[in-house]
């Protein structure tokens, strides 16, 4: 079977590459900053360049303590890499121009996916090469990673980011706006962890959690955000993997036996990515163009969307409202009315949002 059968149309590829550069450039810069930069810091530190620049050590510490945020940053930029190109085509109405040209919908989406994946690949390979070059040019410096880890990181990140990318492409085929793509992808990727955390939070209020710690809404908000963050960091499949995008975390994961799960997990990720892409093609082929600009392109999804958003916000805002009204009384007395108020308020806001987009 000829290989060029799998290549995207070169003109579409060129067009998609050119239009996605405003997202690709921050993406590649971020990866370079978040990964290669660490190696540079180590090398400079090894050569004792820190002395005349005291702030540098502080900055290095900040860098090392923020690997979680680097993972999140990379995650957010990957979502943008998939959400922006299709969203912008819809919002600028250039999708109509493209669909009137001699391309099938399949070719149009395929080209966008290939451009995105190529950009992820280029960013990772470029950085792995840069890090390899730095490591090779500076022998004798005490790294705790070597060439296998560097290229292992690149391969690992490629699979993880491909999964996130394909997931967002799928979302982009059901949403009509760039922000809709972005926010729905974030909600859906966080939803499994977030939902169970919110359920857990409501549950502990009913059991033996010290009530006095819950009747102040601000600590409660912090508690829920922290818990969401931790849970997302540790348990949600995509974020758990993203956390290892940072070279150091990747190295530590391997050291504690992370390698054992890797072949299964990576195979699963590759299969899931392919499945998500196939589903995206299926939905894109059935896209009703007239609903561009709406949060959701398919009316049947509106009910599910509302249910998910209302449930999550009710679970999040209910205990906080109860804490606000309890003022030292038993918070449980206020919980059910608070859920009702939060649920009703969210229902109203979600409907207004959908209507607002529709009218626009």
């Amino acid at each position, binding site marked *: 079977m000829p290989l060029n059968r799998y290549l995207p149309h070169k003109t579409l590829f060129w067009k998609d590459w050119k239009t996605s550069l405003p997202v690709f450039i921050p993406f590649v810069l971020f990866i370079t900053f978040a990964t290669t930069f660490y190696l540079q810091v180590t090398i400079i530190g090894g050569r004792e360049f820190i002395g005349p620049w005291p702030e540098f050590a502080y900055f290095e510490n900040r860098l090392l303590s923020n690997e979680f945020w680097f993972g999140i940053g990379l995650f957010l930029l990957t979502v943008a890499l998939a959400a922006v190109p299709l969203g912008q085509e819809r919002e600028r109405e250039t999708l109509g121009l493209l669909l*009137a040209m*001699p391309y*099938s919908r399949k070719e149009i989406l395929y080209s966008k996916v290939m451009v995105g994946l190529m950009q992820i690949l280029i960013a990772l390979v470029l950085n792995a090469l840069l890090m390899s070059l730095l490591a090779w040019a500076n022998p004798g410096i005490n790294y705790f990673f070597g060439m296998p880890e560097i290229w292992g990181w690149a391969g690992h990140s490629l699979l993880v980011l491909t999964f996130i990318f394909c997931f967002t492409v799928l979302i982009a085929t059901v949403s009509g706006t760039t922000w809709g793509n972005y926010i729905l992808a974030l909600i859906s990727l966080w939803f499994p962890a977030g939902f169970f955390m919110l359920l857990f939070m409501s549950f502990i209020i009913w059991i033996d959690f010290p009530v006095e710690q819950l009747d102040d809404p601000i600590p409660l908000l912090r508690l829920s955000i922290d818990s969401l963050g931790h849970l997302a960091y540790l348990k949600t499949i995509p974020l758990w993997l993203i956390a290892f995008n940072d070279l150091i975390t990747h190295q530590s994961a391997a050291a504690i036996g992370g390698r054992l799960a890797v072949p299964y997990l990576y195979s699963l990720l590759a299969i899931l990515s392919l499945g998500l892409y196939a589903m995206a093609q299926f939905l894109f082929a059935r896209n*009703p163009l007239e609903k561009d600009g709406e949060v959701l392109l398919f009316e049947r999804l509106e009910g599910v969307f509302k249910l998910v958003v209302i449930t999550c916000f009710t679970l999040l805002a209910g205990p906080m409202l109860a804490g606000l009204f309890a003022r030292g009384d038993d918070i449980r007395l206020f919980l059910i009315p608070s859920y009702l108020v939060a649920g009703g308020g969210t229902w109203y806001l979600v409907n207004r949002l959908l209507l607002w987009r529709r009218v626009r």
Partner: protein
Amino acid sequence: MKIVVSDLTKTFQEKTALKDINLTVPQGAVFGLAGPNGAGKTTLIKIIMGLLLPTRGSVSIGGQPVRQDHRLKARIGYLADYQRFYPGFKVKDMFRLYRESYQGWSRERFEELRRLFNLPENIQVKHLSKGMHTQLAIILNLALRPELLVLDEPTSGLDPVLRRQFLTILMDEVAENGTTVFISTHQLHELERICDHLAIIHEGRLISSESLEELKQKVRKLQAAFATPLPAEVLQRPGILNVEQAGRVYGITVQDGLSELMAELRQFQPLFLDFVDISLEEIFIHRMGGEGYALKQILAP
């Protein structure tokens, strides 16, 4: 390329944009589509181009549905009501996109049109005026030597000189290549100049679809003068679309029952009775008036 629209209905949520449209555009015809704002012209064109899915019914071009047929789309040029290009692209990038996408792209035709419109190539599309956007779309779509041109309000944003120039180019295109043209516009005098068929659409329904010659044969205008005023019942006969009166001179636009009307008018011994030319604009206004549409709103500025 022949376009066949069969039993086409399109609804958006609760609103019916098109209802049971049946239309045939013969191969090689210059087919005009007229109708007031919101009549459903753009929706019909988007369905013909495969950009929107019909709720019911079908559209075929050259016997094929267009939506997923990229070979068919390669033979069709399309000017949308608002020209949308990639804002970060330069004009030359748009040229490249079209040149590499369409196999039928003609370099000679492109150079000829580019010289004619004198569009700067190194300017970003977002800096072009509305008229220049239209010029760019015209160059791009005519250079691909289409067998079918679908044009949605193509002259909007063009000044009168460019508008005339565009119509001349379009007529040349039809004369040289036998291109089928499907054009929607408010400028009825333009349609009159270039079209051989006309369809009128109002509130999503097709009011008429016929050749311009048939239409002008069917709708006639009589001018007559009488020594005494005509009785009101004569002027209220079925088939009379409009009556203009200046003293004892009458201008009567009639669609059906012309011979009976003339016979009746002769009984009142007219000082003179003759046919006068009727413009497409007048036919359109009187027909739409018959459909209950407020006449003032029919013609766009």
